């Protein structure tokens, strides 16, 4: 699996942005990872616990939003979510389908704690 390079990139993005905004540390990281990405949350968390040590992101909580892949039926225009397997349109049984979403893999936002916070 390729979760290590993915986790390294999440760490790089979060640390860069945190430093840019003068963070003392990062408390939370929010990501969107679509169904087509083949990324396993637990594996990312496993690598994260190791590689984030000693960085601004050490101890930050990872939040994964996992939107399903959405398919559009070109015959009857029904939109439906991809299950584990590719199945025909639930309305008209056609396999004439287009993929609308599911390829997302991004860091959306982070929550940072600033040095001069005393409350």
């Amino acid at each position, binding site marked *: *699996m*390729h979760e290590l*390079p*993915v986790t390294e*990139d*999440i760490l*790089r*993005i*979060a640390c860069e*942005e*945190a430093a840019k*905004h003068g*963070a003392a540390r990062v*408390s*939370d990281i929010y*990501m969107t*990872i679509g169904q*087509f*990405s*083949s990324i396993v949350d637990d594996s990312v968390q496993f690598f994260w616990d190791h590689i984030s040590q000693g960085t601004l992101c050490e101890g930050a909580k990872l939040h994964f939003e996992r939107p399903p*892949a959405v*398919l559009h039926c070109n015959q009857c225009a029904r939109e439906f979510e*991809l299950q584990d*397997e*590719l*199945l025909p349109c639930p309305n008209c049984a056609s*396999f*004439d*389908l*287009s*993929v609308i979403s599911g*390829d997302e*893999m*991004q*860091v*959306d*936002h*982070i*929550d*940072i*704690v*600033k040095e001069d*916070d005393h*409350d």
Partner: protein
Amino acid sequence: MTERVEIVKKILDSNERLALNNQALLDNHGILGLNIMASPGAGKTSFILQTIKRLPPGLRLGVIEGDTAPVTIDADKVLAAGMPAVQINTGGECHLDAVMMESALQALPLAELDLVIVENVGNLICPAAFKLGTHANLLVASIPEGDDKPYKYPNIYRDLQVLIVNKIDLKPYIDFRMDYFIQGVRALNPGLVIFELSCKTGEGFEAWTNWLVSQVKARKQEA
């Protein structure tokens, strides 16, 4: 008190940027880059060797061989066929990435080439996530793997430009419904270019190599 910082940045974007540099390097030399992916045993190396045999004499090809272990069997086969080959040992990694591709390109005589074929690590999940900077991703699927693969592993078919259906000589022996297979593939990737062929008998190779040669020429003209 925490403060929210909006980011919205693509993960693995740094790999994609490096891949764009690799592609620019290929473009500067008028070279077509092809990334070949498949599960182990689908026939990637045979497919490359059979393709080399059928290319017109003037077409100059280099091969980048990705492997998880330091073995040079595949690269040796390509060298024996008279083509420059570079072996990348990924050190156990399940895929090639743009960094490995960059160093492999530096080891090839780019000024003397028209086409670079990359044989990715035999794996269907990971290589698809890492762009290399090639102009096309090609998947070698094979009849014995079964006709349900696009339905069971839809992810793999998303970012391909070319699909090779290999081992069609085995059709009489295996219950493989080509229509069903292609229907699933088309749903996931409508513009995909598909060739059915056999590395064993050579059936179907002419259409594939004609297409490849036309793509190489088109790339040369753009340069």
